[in-house]
């Protein structure tokens, strides 16, 4: 066990959120809540990434007055990575919600167990 558990409280929160989202994915029977669980996992990963780029007492990576001294600004790399991730996660949720609507139209339920039972009954 390392010694930085309490110093890294932001990362600790991210990890706990990841666990909550994962447990949601396993335990919820409702498809919409499963999707929300996956979204929580997404944001947890982004929080962990963005936390790594933060440097205490420095500014956002927007160059002020042409002063390009890197010791004034935080690390811009995680921001760029997470920006990409946020938009992709919206596409993923939209696709999953569309699939949910199709499933609901066919089986008239959001409960995964019942959907599976209907599929079994149809013999697929």
């Amino acid at each position, binding site marked *: 066990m*390392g010694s*930085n*558990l309490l110093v*890294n409280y*932001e*990362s*600790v*929160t991210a*990890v706990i959120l*990841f*666990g*909550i989202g994962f*447990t*949601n994915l396993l*335990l919820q029977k*409702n498809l*919409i*809540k499963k999707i*929300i*669980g996956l979204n*929580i996992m997404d*944001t947890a990963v982004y*929080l962990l990434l963005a*936390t790594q*780029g*933060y*440097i*205490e007492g*420095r500014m*956002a*990576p*927007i*160059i002020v007055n042409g002063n*390009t001294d*890197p010791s004034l600004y935080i*690390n811009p*790399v995680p*921001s*760029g990575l*997470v*920006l*990409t991730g*946020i*938009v992709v*996660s*919206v*596409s*993923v*949720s*939209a696709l999953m*919600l*569309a*699939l*949910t*609507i*199709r499933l*609901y139209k066919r089986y008239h*339920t959001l*409960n995964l167990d*019942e959907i599976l039972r209907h599929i079994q009954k149809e013999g697929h």
Partner: protein
Amino acid sequence: MENFRLILLIFLVLCALFVSFSKNLLVSVVIFMSYSLIMSIIWVLLESPDLAITEAAVGAGVTSVLFFITLKRIGAIGKEHPDEQDETTKEINSRPAVKQFGKFYKGAAVTLGAAIIFALLLMVSNLPAFGDADNPYNNEVSERYLEKSIEETGAVNAVTGMILDYRAFDTFGESCVLFIAAACVLILLRDDKTDTTAKAIQDEKFEPVSDTILQTSAKILFPAILMFGIYILVNGHLSPGGGFSGGAIMGAGLILHVNAFGYKKTQRFFNEKTYKRVTVCALSFYCIAKSYSFFTGANHLESHIPLGNAGDIISSGLILPLNICVGLVVACTMYAFYTLFKKGGM
């Protein structure tokens, strides 16, 4: 400031827990929306304003709208128990073997979740300290981006310079992901066009009710929102924001317009044909423009695109047109998602 951050983080965990335990789907979605808003405040505190704007516009705004419209489409709003089971499922669930397995499954799932949290906590405790400038992540890569960003790309905002110049192909792939997602949703939710009478009835059903309060406020808000979106879009290389957040705000403005004035009025300036043309043109322009700079850069040829005076609106070479392209794709996609979810067509 540190206490404030701590309180927000605790709220974040509480929101996630409430989402999991809430029985009502609408309540879950609303709490998830506030979760995203708290997340965007945390990003302001972490000195990442780009992320904050994008999360507020995309995460809290558009994602929640998509969840709401899904609930509306399947009529789950207001239902107390969305998990209600029919008789056969109840009968199956009351069998002793199934009950026992259910208990075992729940226990195993919680144990697995706790085990994952524990393993990751072990990892976190060995990570370098939070906010320390000597962390191994803060190496020569980030230094080079910060030092050379203005000189090489002309962008004052180093994050924009990075995602639209150094790693512009990555952003191109991402815009394509959005386009592909919209295409998949189109395939999944599109109406059957052959049945015209049913479609006419359905169109009427999905036409929003004419609401004076909504229309009057939309008349004032729609130009303001569109203007704000364009401002964020074209200032992407100077201030936080850029294509993704500006585009999402413009898409939200279009969604407001369609809700207030109905599809007929919106279709006058935005229909499926416009969507196809704008998206394909924006993506092709992005691809050609970036291929040009890739070709000249890789072959040590002189690029003929002037970088301009850093800090001006018209500066930083290709970044401004690329930002506008990305913004158009995002705005069209967000609007397309909404209309496809709402009535299965544009």
